[in-house]
């Protein structure tokens, strides 16, 4: 049972979470621009993972192809996460249009180590580059998400952005746990290879539980 949860828990929970969040998105129509953006891109974030999992299942018998698919989707999801958090950060500062050039430069700079790590991983047959880059990416993403959360909490209309709050607090949990997961070996947990899956699983449970709380809060506000 534990092995089943380790291997398939996150993959099975993702469709449930996406259904829950589509329900949240459809339930209310009056969103702020930030929350509307956050919800749409959050659902797309899960869609990429579901497509990734379908490919991973389909090509699981061929180790080489499975590894290439993994690296391709890892690049895709890493750049997507940077785009998502950066855009939310700029939106939360109301600086999206004013600093569009900075946004493009930052995203391009952040994409370079991600692509390079995947290439080095493939050519040198070692996971060191992707493990290292993912660790630094998670630090940057968590810092960005904390600032987005700080801006959200300082808004006067906090209750209008309640969905965004649950999304980004879940991301802090997700990135924080993945920082730990990137360091299982330096921390001495030689056998805990599934730490990253558990990190994802805990975050998914949080996001799934958030759907219920958002529904309850929205129901109370509307009554």
């Amino acid at each position, binding site marked *: 049972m534990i092995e089943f949860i380790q291997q398939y828990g996150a993959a099975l929970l993702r469709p449930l979470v996406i259904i829950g969040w589509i329900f949240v998105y459809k339930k209310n129509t009056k969103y702020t621009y930030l929350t509307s953006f956050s919800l749409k891109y959050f659902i797309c974030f899960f869609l990429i993972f579901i497509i990734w999992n379908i490919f991973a299942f389909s090509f699981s018998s061929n180790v080489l192809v499975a590894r290439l698919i993994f690296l391709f989707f890892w690049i895709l999801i890493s750049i997507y996460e940077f785009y998502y958090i950066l855009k939310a950060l700029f939106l939360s500062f109301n600086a999206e249009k004013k600093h569009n050039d900075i946004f493009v430069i930052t995203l391009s700079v952040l994409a370079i180590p991600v692509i390079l790590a995947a290439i080095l991983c493939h050519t040198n047959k070692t996971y*060191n580059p992707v493990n290292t880059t993912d660790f630094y990416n998670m630090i940057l993403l968590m810092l960005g998400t904390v600032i987005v959360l700080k801006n959200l909490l300082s808004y006067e209309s906090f209750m209008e952005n309640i969905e965004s709050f649950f999304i980004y607090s879940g991301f802090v949990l997700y990135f924080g746990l993945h920082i730990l997961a990137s360091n299982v070996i330096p921390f001495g947990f030689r056998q805990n290879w599934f730490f990253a899956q558990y990190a994802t699983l805990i975050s998914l449970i949080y996001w799934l539980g958030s759907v219920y709380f958002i529904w309850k809060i929205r129901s109370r506000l509307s009554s």
Partner: protein
Amino acid sequence: MKKKVVALFLTVVFVLTAFSMYSMVSKVQADNAASIQCTTQGDFMPAPFEEVTVEKSSISNNQDMFCSIQGDIMPPPFEDDEDTTTSTK
């Protein structure tokens, strides 16, 4: 955003990206335990590279020996406790 905030933001991004690139390139040839397994995000991890074998732990069932519940300071593993008892006799 103020100019100072933009400058700080870009500095953090550039410095961490530079660290990331430096660490990645310097570790690419390192043949250590971290290179065999992928610990990044993703639901299904790719298979370990065949050239390196996983070092097995000498402890047969270490899950039972270490306390992994909540709490800031964990009690010592049972194996240490047994060792102390033996030495005091």
